[in-house]
């Protein structure tokens, strides 16, 4: 069976975080837990020329959840085998087995698994597995006011939107082979850009 995946269009994402809050609402997440979150990236510098200002700067957003990787490094490193991958690629955490050791959160390069203080176990995006089983889209996808998120089989998304690209600040996709197809923002060309950085760290930090 073909693996399921997210598509994210960075070109049109305004960074409104409706996806983040739709996820929070669907999954009843506590403050400090963000199974989907939006990174604001910017870089460049201002130049003063006489009394005028030239903005050699750029900014874009990355909305990110668990990428349900083809090679889930979290699963490999889970000492209690609580992390499982379904035939359709959905990676889940069985909270009845999870020890809450946080190994998965240390190894995941995307910050997807997050500790649930109340239950003492890990949690993360499960692609709204209940919705998927009902034939519906994950909550975040249908939430997006700019229609910048999509969901489907990985190969279909690649066919529809093109191959994914390496986009800052995401790690090299070869590490875990994420099920994520991204259309980069016009200003996200890594070769040409100066000093990109995530500038909203306080908004994306999580437990």
């Amino acid at each position: 069976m073909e693996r399921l995946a997210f598509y994210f269009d960075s070109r049109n994402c305004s960074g409104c975080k409706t996806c983040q809050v739709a996820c929070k609402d669907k999954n009843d997440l506590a403050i400090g837990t963000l199974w989907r979150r939006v990174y604001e990236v910017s870089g460049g510098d201002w130049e003063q020329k006489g009394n005028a200002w030239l903005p050699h700067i750029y900014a874009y957003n990355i909305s990110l959840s668990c990428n349900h990787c083809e090679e889930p490094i979290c699963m490999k490193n889970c000492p209690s085998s609580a992390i499982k991958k379904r035939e359709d690629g959905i990676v889940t955490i069985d909270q009845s087995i999870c020890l809450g050791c946080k190994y998965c959160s240390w190894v995941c390069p995307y910050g997807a698994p997050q500790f649930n203080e109340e239950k003492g176990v890990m949690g993360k995006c499960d692609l709204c597995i209940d919705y998927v089983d009902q034939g519906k889209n994950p909550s975040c996808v249908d939430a997006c006011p700019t229609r910048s998120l999509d969901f489907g089989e990985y190969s279909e998304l690649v066919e529809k939107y093109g191959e994914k690209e390496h986009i800052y600040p995401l790690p090299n996709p070869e590490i875990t082979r994420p099920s994520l197809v991204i259309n980069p923002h016009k200003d996200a060309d890594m070769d040409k850009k100066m000093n990109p950085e995530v500038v909203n760290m306080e908004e994306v930090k999580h437990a």
Partner: protein
Amino acid sequence: MERRKFIKVGALGYGGIIAGKSLLAKLMTSAQIKKLASTFSGDERMVRVGCPSHNCGGRCLLKVYVKEGVITRIETDDRPGDDISDPQLRACIRGRGYRPRQNHADRLKYPMKRVGKRGEGNFERISWDEATDLMAKNINRIKEKYGNEALYIPYGTGGYNQTCGKWPADRLLNLYGGALGYYNSYSWACINLATPTVYGTRVTGNQRQDWLNCKYILMWGWNPAELRDGTNTEYFLRKARENGAKLVCIDPRMTMSAVSLADEWIPIRPGTDMAMMSAMVYVLITEDLLDKHFIAKYCIGFDETQMPEGFEKEESYKEYILGIRDHHPKTPEWAEEITGIPKETITRIAREYANTKPAMLYQGYGMQRRAYGEQVVRGGCVLAAITANVGISGGWASGIALQADDGGPFWNVFPTLKNPVKAKIPCFLWSEAVIRGKGMGAEDGVTGVDRLSTDIKMIWAVASNAIINQHGNINRSIEIIKDESKVEFFVVQDNFLTATAQFADLLLPACTQFETWGMEDGWKYGDELILQPQILETPWETKSDYAICAAIAEKLGIEEEYTQGRDEKQWIEHLIGVYKSSRFPDIPTLAEMEESNVGVYSLPVTEPKVAFVDFRKDPEKYPLQTESGKIEIFSKQLFEKNNPAEIPAVPKYIQEWESPFGAETEKFPLQVIGPHYMPRVHSTHDNNNWLSEAFPQRIFINEIDAKTRKVKDGDLVKVYNDRGAVILPCRITRRIMPGVISIPQGAWWKPDKDGNDLGGSINTLTSERWTPMAFGNAQHTIMAEAIKFKA
């Protein structure tokens, strides 16, 4: 914003619109409807309901799941066929994140009256019987002693659907002799009054589907991605861009819209937009890029050959631009010094706008909430006119741009009735009417009477935080409100103990919009009506705004007249009938809408309407409603105000009363702007922790200004001027022009013991001074200094 009474009821033409004949204009199959109507089994039910109206620019649809009387989940519009003619009304973060507000522990639960001095914030619980007695007694006492003109229901939009918020209170007082009225709004005072000085109407906007026909879009101070200036506006712009339009964003901030919608961002110093517009016109004149034929046929006052009779010797617009009389040609070099935009950029944008047809110059409202906000409105309209972008598909006339051809959504069908009091004040001058109302006249914008007969003596703020938090100069407003000899009775009716409510003599606890019946149509754009069924019990001792007013009506002995025997739901049924007889002839009944659980009735737009089509076709046969019948670049009406320095007859750049160019910069070198912020609708949702987690309230400062002040990201920063001080953590950002800081408006004022505002309300710093022509708020015109705060 102004709520307009709809005038053309019964005379609506729907030519060009394919009106939906079925319940679902999207032509869903019956199976699809059935699927939509199905609710979850067991004890959880799902209801489609309009997102509570708080005067953001959106009107969206929610799917709300309720279990055991509590909302468990909120989703959004899922109608099939999400296409451009009738896109899904997808809610943003403010709707999807509604649960913390709805379930908040701090909800006002019982009527309360003040204990101790006004503003100390101490209250005791009372019964509704005592509360409504207090209301009736005070209304009667003040009415007898000072007259109805002493009663005032201020501007406020915390509850803003068809039947909640201030409308029921207006109806009540209008049935009881009336109250002092107001005009204008805190949103668009200048644009509302200045647009008709050019065009004779406010209906200057094409339907948004027409944006797909546009080739060049100047988003001037316009940030719909964050505001939601109409649900789906950002989506229509995305589609226009995919269709080949170039989008350029001119704004002091690299806004969410600049990042997600624009091909280019041009930072501009706040309050200098008219300098850039004037220089663009200079380029058009000197490079012969104007549409001379259009100007000759459709405009007056552009040059000396077309001045109105009797005004031939006055300064024409062209003379102003070329500096014939003032010896200051409005060149791009001149504008570069003022705007901070390189002259080459100004020239290029002028050429692009003139040469790419059709083009759209959309004016945001922030730049007209400034010192001479009237000018930029007229300036934008004139640019659209002299490039002949008026009256054509893909073009845009600028101005306030209500939707063609009928002005768009109804906005107000609940009968608030005629106010027997004729006197009106500009809403931003309420504090003036408190401290010196008696005798105020036309020089203060008073209309309907020569002079006010009394000061305001009772304020009943319904769903309004605009007395303390949202009005200019909080520390001044507090001194005025605290004086119990001025406003003798101050009532606040709301969901929470807001900054305004802390000063109340009487607190009336209103329920939320999920806890009663309501209905909303589009905000500025759209052709839909969204139902708001009651989905939760009315909790504790809260009541709907309508039920509160009905209870007061009973004490005043006018209950029958007031209610007409209707409860909230029966009013909705009645009002759907009003729509049926006017704007939506095919709308289903309330019972049918409830049964289907579709939540929304919408009309797809396949042939979007274009404003001024008839005028463009034949200006003789279809003249504008201006005095000349033409587009008035020179305004006789404004000339006759006899204040050329502040209200010129042609649109001009005027240096603001606080600006980076005056002596004030020695003490206060930074411009401060208070934009709309994604997590709030004005001050609503400030206490919502899901939303403040996503977007905390911060002082946004450019890295260059931060560096000279030795401020690091996250440091506590104090921003202050002579009116007050705000202390907040800062966010260092590249996305704002150097010399400008941003403190998003709407955060709740929370003073420390020294009076510093730790909540971060921009109005701690703003001024109560109003604009010269519209008497509008100029709250974005402020200067301040920022320093690293050390406790």
